[in-house]
Every structure is written in C-alpha cells, then in structure tokens.
C-alpha cells in the first residue's frame, strides 16, 4: 500500500492520504503509512540505564536492534494502567529503526484532504509540537503525528 501512495501523482496525494490509526491514552492518532515499517505486538524490551526518560529500551526486530520510544512519555501523558501491553509502530529515522510504543493500533484508513485542518491554536503545546494537523472523522478527531519530530530526541539536535 505504501508503494501505491508514493507512486500516485502529487495532486491525488493531496486529495487523499493513507494513515495507520492508533490510540494513546484514549486519543486517536494517525501516522502516514509510508513512514511505518512494521507493526508489532507486545515485545520483550531491554531497559537502557541512564537513557533519557522517553526511551523505554531496546528490542530485537528480526536481528536488528530497535530503540523503543514511549509515546506517552513523549507526549507528557500519565503511564498506562498496570499490566497494559503496548503495541509498537516501527519507523525509520536518521538511518536507524525506532519503535513507538502506543496503547493500540487499530486499522489503516484513507482520509480526505477536505477533512484536514492545521493545528487549532488552543491545542496544548505538548501535543502541538508533535502534530502536523487534525482530521475531522465522523465520530472523533484524529491527530496526525509528526514522526520525525517525535523521534528527534535530544542528543542529536
């Protein structure tokens, strides 16, 4: 599917885009499907001492070491309830693989450009920094996550 998106002419991409939908702390979010390399269920994660708090640890994805970034911590959200099993959205950034830990990954959806709006001014700063805009879905709002920004953790800026 990602290839389809890439090969369509510009004009059409502007009209309709495909997102992986996920939830974090009850909020629906979307990540452009082209930037997603993998979706993983619960994984064994090795803690990394002395790492920034947003880094949950590292995990083994078919022989590659992937750094796990906790989306809740990144967005200043409270930790998930005890016993919750996070899922991961794997994306590449700066030649390395990262796994964004989210509460749930639900489906892949095409969204129309006419439903898109840029960040409303009242959106909380912690969210606005990592959001490129909002889609008005029928029953709820979807925040488009800025994956490169989420993964641009201190140490490289």
């Amino acid at each position, binding site marked *: 599917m990602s290839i389809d998106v890439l090969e369509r002419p510009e004009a059409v991409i502007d009209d309709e885009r495909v997102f992986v939908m996920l939830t974090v702390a009850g909020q629906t979010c979307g990540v452009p499907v082209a930037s997603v390399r993998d979706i993983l269920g619960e994984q064994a994660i*090795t803690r*990394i*001492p*002395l*790492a920034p708090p947003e880094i949950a640890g590292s995990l083994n994805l078919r*022989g590659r*070491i992937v*750094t796990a970034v906790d989306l809740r911590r990144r967005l200043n959200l409270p930790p998930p309830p005890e016993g919750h099993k996070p899922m991961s959205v794997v994306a590449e950034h700066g030649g390395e693989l990262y796994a964004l830990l989210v509460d749930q990954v639900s489906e892949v959806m095409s969204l129309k450009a006419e439903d898109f709006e840029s960040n409303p001014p009242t959106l909380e700063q912690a969210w606005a920094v990592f959001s490129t805009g909002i889609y008005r879905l029928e029953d709820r709002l979807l925040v488009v996550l800025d994956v490169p920004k989420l993964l641009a953790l*201190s*140490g490289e800026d």
Partner: protein
Amino acid sequence: MDDLLADFLTETNENLAELDVALVTLERTPNDEATLSFIFRLVHTIKGTCGFLGLPRLERVAHAGENVLGKIRDKALTVTPDIVSQILAALDCVKSIVAHLGAAGTEPAGDDADLIATLNATASGQTAAPESEKNPEPEVAPASALTVTPTAAVQTIRVTVDVLEDLMTLVSELVLTRNQLLQLARSQENAAFSVPLQRLSHITSDLQEGVMKTRMQPIGNAWNKLPRLVRDLSREMNKKIELTMLGADTELDRQVLEFIKDPLTHMVRNSGDHGLETPDERRAAGKPESGRISLNAFHEGGHIIIEIADDGRGLAIDRIKAKALANGLASEAELAVMSDDQIARFIFRAGLSTAAKLTAVSGRGVGMDVVKTNIERIGGTVDLKNKPGHGTTFIIKIPLTLAIVSALIVEAGHERFAIPQLSVVELVRARREADGTTESVIERINGTPFLRLRRRLLPLVSLSGLLQLGVPQTDDDGAYIVVAQVGTNMLGIIVDRVFDTEEIVVKPVTAILRHVTMFSGNTILGDGSVIMILDPNGIARATGIGAGGEAKPAPVAATEKAHSGQKTTMLLFRANGDQKMAVPLGLVARLEDIPRERIELSCGEPVTQYRGKLMPLVPISGNHDLERATQPVLVFADRDRAMGLMVDSIIDVVDDHLAIELGGVRPGMLGTAVIRGEAMDIVDTGYWLTRAATDWFDGAAPAGQDVRQRHVLVVDDNAFFRQLLVPTLGAAGYQVSAAAGAEEALRLRDAGRLFDAIVSDIDMPDMDGLTFCRTVRAGGAWAALPIIAMTARAEPRDIALGRAAGFTDYVTKSRREDLTEALRACLTEPALA
C-alpha cells in the same frame, strides 16, 4: 567514472604500493635482476594502460621513469640512491595524478617538465656517473621480509569491500539466529529437527569462519609503506637505518588493519627520528653504525601482538620528568616515587614530546597520545619497555577482529550486561570466611567500597549504583567482582551474578544514546534478547578512577586535555581527633598559628584580634580544646572581613586530581575524595563562612534593589566546583541551578527554563565553554543573558578569546570574591551590549 578507469585506478594503486617496497629492495641489492624486471614490468604496465585510456600526463611521467629503468636493466646505468630517489619522485608524481583521477575522474592540470627532464638526463647518463661512488655498502644484508615475490599466479577475483561487509553482517545475523534455534532445541527433547539443526549449526560455523577469512589481510599490507618511509627518513636525517619486519603474513581483520596503519607509521617514524642516534653517536657508544628498527607481529591468545623495537638511545627519563613537571602532569613528589617505566609512560600523555628539537618528521607535540587513543579505540593496549642506551620497544596488543568479540555476561539490578572479555582480568567472589580473614571481603571507607586483592587495594564500583538501576546493592556476601584492566589501572566492578561468556556481535548504540559513555555498543544474545555492552574505559572515567593514578589512560585526547588542567592544590589538615580533611588552597587566605592568650570570648564565641579587627573563630569540631599553647587557624577572607577555622594541625599542601564521592555526608563537608591514596573529607567553605556570621554574604547580595531573587545557572563538568559554587552563590543571595555540561545546560534552555545569568566553565569535554557561549549567543531565550566565564586559565589571550565568544566577564576559578563581584556588576547594571 567508467568501469575501465575504476579498474585501472584500483590496479595502479596496488602496483604503486608494491613498487615502493621493490625499489627499496633494489637499492640494497642493485644486481637483483628479478626485482628489477618486476619493477620494470609494473611501470611499463602503468604506462601502457594510460596510453590506452588517454591519460597523456600520466603516460609521460611513467614513460620517463620507464626509460631510466630500461637503462638500468640494460646495464647502461648502475643503481644509486639518487637514481632510486628520482624514480621514487616519479612514482610520487604518478600517485598524486592517480589520486586526483580517483577523486575528480580527470587528470589534474599541471606540468611535470622538470621531473621528466631530470629523468631523461639520468637516462642519457648525464648525472649518474659522479654519484656512483655512493653505492650502498655491500655488507648490509637485505632484510628477510623485504624479499619481493613477484609471482601473481594465485587465482583471484576482485570484490568490493561493501559486498564483504554485507556478507559479514548477514553471517553475524545467521549466527545469532542459529544460537536462538539451539536454545529452543535444548528445551525440546527428541525434536525431529535436532539432527538437521546440528548440521545447520556446523555449516553456520564454517561459513562464519570463511567469511571472517575474506576480511583478513596480512599485516604486511599496513607495513608496505614503511621501507620507503624509513629510506627517506635515513637520507633526510643522515642516519643509517635497517628495517626488519617479521611476521608480515600475520593476518588480521581489515577494519583493525585500517585503524593501526597510521599509529604504526607514526611509531616507526618516531623510532627512526629520535629513537636512533646519528652514526657518529652510535660509533661513540660502541654500537654498529646503522641503527635497527624491527617490527614483529604474532598471534597470542586471540590477539595480535605487534612489537616495534629500536636499538637507539632509549627514552630520556630525565627529560620526560622535567616535561611532565613543567606541564603539570605530575608533581615532584609523585615523580620521586615512580619507576622509570612509569615515567616513560608519560609520553602517552597529551602535549608531551621529548624531541629536543622539532624536525619535519616528529616532535610536534602531537604523537604518542594520539597513537594510544587510536589503539584504545579498537579495544587494544599499548605499552613500552625502555632500556636507556639500548633502545625502546613498544608493544601493541589488539583484538583480531572488531566484529565478533567474546564477552562476559553479568547481571546487576535484575538487568544483564556484557563486558568485553579483553578487559576482564579475573573474577572474585566476595565472601566472609569463617576464620574472619579480610581477604575477599568488601570494605568501605565512608561508603566507598574497596577490596584487598593480593596486598593491593582495588577500588570498587557498584554497577547497579553506577547505572542508577534503582535496586539497592544486596548484601556484599556472595556478590561478584569483575576485575577489569583500564589502561594501567585496575578497577573492580561489583555485580550480582555472573553467567558465562558468549561470542557477541557488537552493534553501535543508537545516536541518541551516544552521550552515555558507559556503553560501547549493544548486541543480541542467543536467547534473542537485547543486551548493552559495557565500556570499562567509560566506567573508569565516570567514577574518576585513573584520575589520581600515575598513568591515567587517555581515552579521548579532548577529555584528557580537559582534565589535565584540573589538578587542584589542596591543603591537608587534621581535625576532630585524628581525622584528615582537605580544602582547596585557593580558598584559604592565610594560615595562622594564634597564641592561646590572644583568643578571647565575645558573646561566648571565640574571637581574636586580627589586623586591627575582630575575627570570629569557628571550631571545625564541636568541642574544641582551648587549652593549647597555639591554635592553628585557616583564615578565609572576603573583601575586608575574615574568619578563622580552628583545626588540630596542618599536615601538608599537595597537588592532586580531585574526584569527590558526593552525597550523604555531614553538613560542612562537601564529600570525601581520595588524595594521595587516602580518603579525606573535603571542607565546604561556604558552610563555615555562614557559620561565622550569618550576614557574611549580605554585602555581596544585590541589597534591596530588587526583591526578586536572581537565578544563576552554573555550568561545570567538575562535580567539585559545582558543589562548591552552588552553596557559595546560594549564600550570596542567589538562587542557583547547576548543569554538568554544556549540553545539559542547552537542554534546560530548550525546556524553557529562564535564568538571570550563567556562570560557565571553559574546559569541558564534548562541548567547551567557548562553543557553549557562542551557541547561547546565536539565538534563543538566553541570547542576551550575562555569561561569566570561570576558568583555571586566565591568560590575556584566553580572556580575549572568551570575550570574542561572547562572554560578559572572565574570572579565575577559586577566586570566589571575583565571581560574586562580577555577578553583582552584571546583574545590577543592564547586561553589556
């Protein structure tokens, strides 16, 4: 670039490397027809191919060189050092053209008429005759390893290094997957797949070995430039040098080979330049006229040992001593108790070149420290043996390969870590014997753990504490101590459990974790879990071990530089009975012995008349003996006020690196540091000053003009100065925050924290104060803040540099009053534009 040209470049580069060696051989054995025709053939090939590819400039140079060689082959010319030099010059010209071709794809513009004219003149016999008496002495035997074997009958194909690298990565993954499968199979008895799995396992091992072999190259490849180098050196320096190379076919990983190429070249150059004496000096010392440099490479227990030996004059211990003293690397007292070998190791420290005069070749102040850094970067070590008058031998020990290392798997705080086997010396189990002996028992001084190991005190560090794993160290009994070698220092790492050793594939850590220097990489274990690989060098640095030792390892040149300036002069004294304490001498104004009769009481507190004023005296121990004949007092002064701290006796003044173990100490003490090998409390002067008079710092505070408390950020990598400044500035009426480095400070800025002023150190690892200041000034919320530089270096040049970088003011470390003065100046006036 077309394929034809690319192939030509690869081939020519290889040929040129061989030519250098062959020509030096030819110079020694002018009548060796095989070598001569080998050289002729190579030059001829180069000439022929460039004619074909349309490279006229290259062709002309090669042609002129071939002419001379042709004359030699036809016996019209005899080989002399000058002729060889000319041909070498022609080859250098060819090399530079080839290099440009490789980079730009075209021949560089230029004219080689002079060179060609010289070569042509030689070919026609014009200059060769008068030089012929300078033939090399026939008694110099050709070095064994220099014999060129121009047999190219082995069948080879050319494969790019990238392909091999990819293969290596894939095989590494295959090995890991195999290990995982084996682990699974172990838990299932009689599984149908156990037999094929065994076969798979064997094949994988063979494959791994095979691919490893493709990466292996003889160490001679790193050496083939050396004969030429030594030859040029001997002509330039007018020394006679023989180079012998043994074990040139010892194989090692090409990645490792690349790393050691430059250090080796540098060391050989050093040996030739200032290791070996001139022929006259050698004759006078009763040695053969020609000096000898020998290289020897061999395998030893999974490592490669390379020895670089010369039979020269040896290292001048006295000069190293003087230099170490002058550069503040060690004090006279420290040097006095060091062995000659320990002193000799100072040459591995930054900024210590012993060459009496600078030559074009060496003695430029960079050198052995860089060599050591490069070798340590690949997990190797370098040491030396020095025999004054008989020469110096350097011994390099490096791993065979970087890709797969053997590692010890340990557990601390319920997490597993890998420690490279290379740095592990032994394992000790801490236990309390029934007979009460103290061997193998962890002992503590003020909470800092130590172990007696064969009559030496081994500093220990708890891994779970160091990595802040949040699990309190369980009972010492039964804990394991991994004894690790870091440079020349030993360090014990306390872990909870030790598993076995495993072959691991080192993968670099992700970019956002590079600042955590405690890890050298990470890997995937046989059971599929990810594990961090510890870096013993990083651990030693983090704990300050090696900082006080005589031969501190130099992991990174920059860090070394930052720390070498941080020797602190400490005043040692006795108080509280027999306890030893220390205070930075820079903070003490004077030392006084006050006669008992001059100590009076004012409101029940002891005071003395001092320089026409009353000076309060504060006992450092609660109950003070006022019956002594004289009272030793440390006087602290600030502007026109002074206070005296009463102690039992003054011991000494020493220079030492200060590494404070912080936390959990009594008020009035900053913590404990090991000074001259003894644990001592470090006095918190800020605390005692406020004890003497609660209004001590009131004069320094921006009195009454501004009700709001000013907020100052202190940036210093040195924990001691942070600990010193925070209470001092706090007492002066400021709210103080501290950052352990420029990056941490910038993170505070990016997090939106606001301050009224910044006080920053200059010498800091990673990002220094100047860069930090420029970064702050470049933009952001802090761009207009007053920034005060605080440093040990306050030469006019440094101050100018600081001002240029944007610092508002520049004060010397340890002069507290200057700092408070500067802060007050820039906070009461609007910040300087």
